């Protein structure tokens, strides 16, 4: 079996298992944690498009995620837009427009300058959410968001909503995988590797970074919309700088430039933050240690580590293969 076909089989098997999980007697609590995992995997993949494929370390991803979430809340409570498709479209468009504005500001700079500007942009949007009380509800956030029907399905129960997030994740993953394998995706990798040569070849490097940021914003928006429906509440924490950092940690844990690796990263972060925080307030220290270990001993991310451990368990040696890029 070719490597490509083996991946497709593995992905299909994973998807089927994920579909069956709620039916296999997994407690509701874990089903809802897995729901969160899919949501955070989507936003982490959107960031991976920038970090892993375009070479842009963006610290404003939580702001885009949050804009998607607030779009749901404000749309529902003020304009009575509650149906699935219009709300999803609204969230995506709002996040993309925000990303497009961020791009205009941040892409005037490169490298460390870009990072610092995106931190500032994230803080500005957080400040708006925190202080513009008449629109955002300030620290109290916005409550009263109701999960919509998806076609004929009632997804107000956690199990139903799990499927919405799982399928959304699968669609986003496929779209992003096609995107990074397209001619445009190759251009992004060229921009990531050597922008100077790209300019010499005749590529408008700025434009490609700008398009990547805007597209990435759309995917972050999808995750934001799902997050708002999941919690049925939106508050400023959703778009804090901490949130941006956490999304980046998921990307690094999962495996930069892998997209599907973000599932593992999201799984670790979501389960640690929920399970450990019940035991100790210092759960982030444990996350820190895991993060440190991954960066030190498996810089390719958990996605590299998992098959390696699996093979060691079976007593096989892994052949050294060129890393997926």
């Amino acid at each position, binding site marked *: 079996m070719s490597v490509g076909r083996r991946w497709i089989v593995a992905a299909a098997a994973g998807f089927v298992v994920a579909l069956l999980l709620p039916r296999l007697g997994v407690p509701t609590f874990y089903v809802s944690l897995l729901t969160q995992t899919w949501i955070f995997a989507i936003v982490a993949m959107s960031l991976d498009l920038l970090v892993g494929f375009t070479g842009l370390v963006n610290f404003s991803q939580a702001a885009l995620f949050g804009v998607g979430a607030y779009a749901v809340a404000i749309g529902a409570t003020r304009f009575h837009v509650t149906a699935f498709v219009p709300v999803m479209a609204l969230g995506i468009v709002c996040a993309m427009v925000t990303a497009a504005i961020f791009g205009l500001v941040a892409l005037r700079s490169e490298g460390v300058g870009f990072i610092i500007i995106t931190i500032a942009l994230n803080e500005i949007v957080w400040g708006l959410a925190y202080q513009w009380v008449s629109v955002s509800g300030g620290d109290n956030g916005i409550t009263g968001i109701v999960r919509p029907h998806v076609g004929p399905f009632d997804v107000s129960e956690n199990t139903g909503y799990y499927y919405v997030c799982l399928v959304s994740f699968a669609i986003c993953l496929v*779209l992003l995988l096609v995107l990074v*394998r397209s001619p445009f995706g190759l*251009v992004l990798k060229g921009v990531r590797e050597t922008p100077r040569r790209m300019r*010499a070849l005749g590529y408008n490097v700025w434009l490609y970074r700008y398009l990547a940021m805007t597209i990435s914003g759309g995917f972050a928006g999808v995750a934001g919309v799902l997050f708002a429906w999941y919690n049925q509440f939106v508050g400023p924490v959703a778009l804090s700088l901490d949130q941006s950092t956490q999304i980046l940690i998921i990307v690094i844990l999962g495996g930069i430039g892998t997209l599907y690796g973000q599932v593992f990263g999201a799984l670790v972060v979501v389960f640690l933050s929920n399970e450990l925080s019940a035991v100790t307030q210092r759960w982030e220290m444990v996350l820190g240690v895991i993060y440190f270990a991954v960066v030190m001993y498996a810089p390719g991310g958990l996605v590299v580590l998992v098959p390696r451990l699996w093979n060691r368990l079976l007593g096989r040696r892994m052949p050294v293969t060129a890393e997926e890029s």
Partner: protein
Amino acid sequence: MTLRQAQDDAPAALRQAQDDEVCLRLDGVSKRFGSLSVLDDVSITIRTGERCGIIGPNGAGKSTLFNIIAGELPLSRGAVSFLGRDVTRVSAHARARRGMARTFQTTTLFPRLTVIENLVLALQAHSAERFTMLVPRSRYRARDHEARALLERVGLGTRADALVDALGYGEKRQIEILLALAQRPKLLLLDEPTAGLAPSDASLVTEMLKREHAGLTMVLIEHDMGVVFDVVERLTVLHYGRVVADGPVEAIRADANVQEIYLGGKV
């Protein structure tokens, strides 16, 4: 500037005729970094089909001049025109789209992409498919074939699927030039193509240049005099940011002044 004014006074038809033959024109190009003057009033005209070498000791301003021609550095004074149109304020990528291609002194490739992918990036740079997002690249077989054909022509066909990072230095230098050739340029700018190469590898690159250059307008910066004399027909000598000699290779070789400042008094 005076040259430019004289041009403007000439009848339009005559100017057009002259411009048809001119590929690249530098008019009084100067570049200062703070108080340091790196280029001072450099004027060079390169006709279509000409192969011109720019030589000069370290710090003469060769690389700065190259970066100005390619549009990577803004100039302090003067004008650059390419194929009869002023490009002084045109960005590097827009100049490339008009037909300029350059190589770099330090190898500037895409290390974590395969050789094929490197070449495809050069080949698709001017085509609409560079914006295609939802069709996988595997549907564009023709591009890969084109890239493979180019590789085979220079004898690197077996390295097509290797990561550029894994290539030997000599191979990288060849790809460096091949990428620029794949752009099908109207003007090829080569910045020390044999820099750091062992003599045997250097001759490989020289052979490649001689084979591929038929009819191509070329500007070459080079330290290795053997390569220069082999490839170009005209030499411009830069010294402390000024043009001190310009003419056919043989004439420049015989020029006592040039021997003094560049060749250390002897050939």
